[in-house]
Structures are given as structure tokens and as C-alpha cells.
């Protein structure tokens, strides 16, 4: 399976890198005792071993006829999923999950400067649009209400010290005291 091959390579690389870094961790001074290095090294060696086993297995499987069949099934499943998406929803963005991930990254990135209320307004606005809300007025109202309600509950009522932002954005955040 292609997935197992990728997974095995990632496991081998990850465990190898961490094994190198584990050399920086001090080991126990006392004989027979397990120091801070012992446990992670044991875990990483096991991971490396399992990664190699998975790699050998996936390489063996590649030559098998059965895998070809399962690949065909997977392809059929993907086709079915895609056709379902076309029937049930109209996303407008073929890879909108990655765009939403990008919006989330933007949300967290701008939070320290823009503060929670404004960043939440932007997140709601963009993600509601990406998830299929069509009317611009509805998107705007939804984003505004979301930001207002969440800020009121979590800043004013629950007193969670959420990022307030800087300059103008800080003034907006300070409306919720």
C-alpha cells in the first residue's frame, strides 16, 4: 500500500532524527538505573524497528496482485466520495479543507496583534463563506454576532485572559471588560 510506504518512511526518518537528538539527554549516573534518556531511546528504537518492518512489508505488498485489487477498490471509493460531494453539496472550492486550515493558521497568527474579537470576526467571516454560506449580509451578521457572543461569554463572563491585540484592536477588545 502506498500509504504504508509513506508512513514507514516518515516513521524511520522521525525516529532517526529524534534518536540523534536523544544523545543530548543525560543518562543515569547510577548503575542499573534508568535515566531520563533510557525511556525515549527505547521507544525510538522500537519505533525505528517497526518503521523498517512496515517498509519491508509495504515493499513486499507492492508486488502482490491483491494490492492492485485493493488499489482499484480505493480508486472506486474515491470516485464515489467525489460523486457524493458533487450531489450533496456545492463547495465551490475543490480543496476547501486546506483553505480552511490556512484560515485557521491566519487566525492564530494574527491573534496577538488583532486580539480575540477581531480575529474571531475574520475567522467566522471566511470560514462561513468557505463552508457554503452564500448571502453576504448573512455572512457578515453571523461573523459579527459570533465575535460578539464569544467575546462576551469568554472575556466578560468567564474572565479568560484572551489576547487583546495592540493599538485600535486593543481598544476594541477593551469593550469586553
Amino acid at each position, binding site marked *: 500500500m502506498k*500509504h*504504508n510506504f*509513506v*508512513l514507514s518512511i516518515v*516513521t524511520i526518518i*522521525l525516529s532517526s532524527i*529524534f534518536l540523534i*537528538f536523544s544523545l543530548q*539527554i*543525560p543518562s543515569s549516573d*547510577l*548503575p*542499573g*538505573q*534508568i535515566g*531520563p*534518556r*533510557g*525511556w*525515549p531511546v527505547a*521507544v*525510538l528504537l522500537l*519505533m525505528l524497528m*517497526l*518503521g523498517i*518492518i*512496515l517498509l519491508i*512489508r509495504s515493499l513486499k505488498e507492492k508486488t502482490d496482485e491483491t494490492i492492485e485489487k485493493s488499489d482499484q477498490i480505493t480508486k472506486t471509493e474515491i470516485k464515489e*466520495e467525489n460523486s*457524493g*460531494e458533487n450531489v*450533496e*453539496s456545492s463547495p465551490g472550492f475543490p*480543496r*476547501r*479543507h486546506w483553505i*480552511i*486550515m490556512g484560515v*485557521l493558521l491566519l*487566525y*492564530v497568527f494574527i*491573534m*496577538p496583534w488583532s486580539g480575540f474579537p477581531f480575529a474571531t470576526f475574520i475567522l*467566522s467571516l471566511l*470560514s*462561513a463563506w*468557505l*463552508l*457554503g*454560506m452564500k448571502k453576504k449580509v448573512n455572512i457578515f451578521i*453571523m*461573523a459579527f454576532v*459570533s465575535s460578539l457572543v*464569544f467575546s462576551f461569554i*469568554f472575556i466578560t463572563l*468567564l*474572565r*479568560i*485572559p484572551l*489576547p487583546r491585540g495592540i493599538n485600535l484592536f486593543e481598544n476594541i477588545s477593551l469593550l469586553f471588560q
Partner: protein
Amino acid sequence: MLEGLLLGIENIAQPFHLLLLFLAIAIGFLGGATPGISGAMLILILLPITYGMESIPAFLLMTSIYAASVYSGSISAILFRTPGTPEAIATVFDGYPMAQKGQPGKALGIAVTSSAVGGIVGTIILMLLTPVLADFALQLSSPEYFALAVLGLTVVASLSDGDLVRGLIGTLLGILIASIGIDPLTGSDRFTFSSIDLRSGVGLVPILIGLFAVSEVLRKASENNSIQQKMEKLKIKILDISLFRKISKTITRSSLIGTFVGILPGIGATTASVVAYSEEVRWSKDSKKYGTGVPEGIAAPESANNSAAMGALVPLLALGIPGSVTTAIILGAFVLHGLQPGPMLLANEQELIYTIFIGLLIVNIMMLFFAKPFISMFQHILKVPYSILGPSILIFCFLGTFADRNSMFDVWMMLLFGILGFYLAKIKFPVATIVLGVVLGPIAEEELRKSIQIAGGDYSIFFTRPISAILLLLAVVVLLLPVIRKVLSNKK
């Protein structure tokens, strides 16, 4: 004891205490069902409010919220694949697939009934056997805790959709993630890469929310809305007698496992639900059906986490050792109220302890009646389009992660685990094994090293103590079971 129980009943019967109990149920249920708001968070928020209260109403409120939040964590786990509380992780495994099949009402009914029975069983056992169970927990030491954690890890690894290698990789990855930060025994840095944030380790909350909630919103964004349409048409049935008969053995077994695991200090309801689920899979004649939406897969973790939540109060009240994160917060609340949990608390504050027990029993019984209208209310959320629900869940994900430690670093971690969870779910990797490694790994490591320290470097300590020897033997059998089965089937 009888005198204490009567005092407890008398206290609960007071109108103010009854009102407080109902309020606690509402707050706990609402908080537990909402992703990102855990019972621990609710108790933390309410702690300043309880300063002005007498100890009995204060602890009645806090412990009842604790019980109610564990209860309702399953609702969002089943409906949105987002555990409302960490204790509901294992409920996702079968609860969500059942909801996806178009049976969310049935899944919720099983969860509520199992939770109620588990909670009642746990509370009754507590009331009757608190001193005995506390004595038993006192006898256990590091080798036994290590053996128990190993057993848990091996069981989990065999829960890997028939692919042990991938399951073990997941578990080991979880253990590796948990080892990041300052070593608890020596204070040495491990994989911190000179980052101050990494020194305190990767929190469980960002891992959970990322792997289960963020990845789910991403998955939803890439798929259709047909399930949502199916859910709207269905009704909830709390007590389905024929179904209850079918899963009664599972509930009984899991309630007992949950209570036992819950009593062990430091382990808690999250581990209990996972262990109970794993046990259910292990003893099932058809283990492959688990993860596809079977009733037993919901009943086992739900009865176990509720009974364990009650069990976790035993070491807290009898020994002064918290059984979980939430009970650790309750321990702090006791100290703030000038009380020191431990053997002396039982002797000096009998009225308070038994009022708490009676309160917990009532909460667990009341849940059976309150659950249906509450879930019906909660179900209205399903009618909300995903273009509204999705952004709200994402904001809750942010809030839940940030509020845990007031850390933006945790939020970045949540996003990282969100991407990881999305990709792993796509390749059908058993994501739950990572979480289980994160939960059980630190316990296993700490107890292993403590045991070796106690024994002066003698590794035979695990085999000379009967309980740890039996548990480790069981772990070996469990790990080898798939291989033995394969060999036997090949011979046939």
C-alpha cells in the same frame, strides 16, 4: 456509615442544596456537552464563586458538576466526533460511526443509559466499600502501576484495525510526544530544542482537540452533508429494554473495571474508558466489528468513565491523592476551603463526605430523566447549517485549547495535531492509539523508573510481586494473542 448516609440525605433535602444540585446538573451537562469546555474548566471558573459558600454547598456544587460533565461529554463525541470532555475519547470510536450510519438517537440512548448505570454502580461501590478500596489502593506500589500501564498499552496496540504494526507505531508516537518536556524525576530537558514552551511538554488538550475536533471540521469541509440530514429525522430513545439486555453484561463489566481503574491514584476516567473499551474488544468473539458503530463499543467506555469518575474520588477523599486532573482541582478547592483531604477528613467531616456521596448518587439518577430533554435541545444544533456550526466549533477549539494553560503555543500545537489527524484519518490510521500512548506513556515511564529505583536496579521486582507479575503476564499474552490466533488458524 448509616448515620453518615442519613445525615447526607438530610442535608440534600434542604431546598438550597436541592436547588444547587439542579443548577450543577444544568451547568455540568451544558459544559460537558460543549466541546472545549471540560468539567475541570467549569470547576476552575466556579471556584472563586464557592469561596463565599459553606463547605457542604460548595463541594456539592463542584462534585455534582464534575459528575454531570463526564456524563454529557459523550453527546458531542457521538454527534460531532468531538469529545465534550477527555473522558469521552473512547466513545468516539463507536459512537460516531453509529451516528454516521444514521442512528445518533440510538447511540445517545446507549450512552445515557450506560453512563447512568456506571455512575450509580460507581457511587454505590464508593459508599459501601470506600475504606476497603482505599486500603487496597494503598497496597499497590510503583511495580503494579507500571504493570497496569503496560497492560493498557499492549491492549491498545492490539486495537489497531487488524494491523498491529501501525497500532504500535501510533502508541509509540504517543509515548514519544508525552516524553517531550522536563523529565519529572530528574528535571533534565528532553526534546525541548531550547524552547521554553516545550519545557512544560505538549498538553493533552491540544492533542485531543487537534486530532479529534480540528481534523473533523477539515474532514467535514471536504465531504457531503448527507449525515446531517439523516440525524434531523431521528428521535432519541433513552431506555430501550431489549437493547439494554443485550449490553447489560458489557455495562456491568465496564462499570466494575471503571471503578477499579478510577480508584487507582493518578489514572482517572479517561484511561478507565479506554481500558474498558479495549477489554470489550479483547473479549469479544468478533473484535473486528468494533469501530464500526456497535452498541457495546459505546456502552463500555460510557459506563466505565462515569464509574471511574466516582472511583477517582476515593483516593482523593480517603488518601488526599487526586485520581484525575479534575479531582486534582477539587483537591485544591478543599485546601482553599481550609480542609485537607485524607484519612482525617473522613473522621472529622463525615457529614460533608456523605452529603457528597448522596449528591453524586442523586445526580447520576437524575441524569436519566434530564438527559432526554437536554439532548433534544442540544439536537437543535444539528439543524444549524454547517456553515454556522463549523466556525463555532473552530472557535470553541481555540478557546478550549487556549483556556487550558493560557498558551498560544498550545494553540499552534492544536493546529499541528489537526493537520496530522486529518491526514492520518485519510489513510485510515488508528489515531486513538496516539492518544492512548500520550495518556499511558508517562505513567508507565515514571512507575518503571521509580520501581527500579526502589529495587536498587533489580528488574526482578516486577515478577516477585504477585499483582505486577500477573498483570505483566497478561500483557504478554495480549500482545501475542493475534500471533497465536494466526498460527492456530494456519494449522487448521
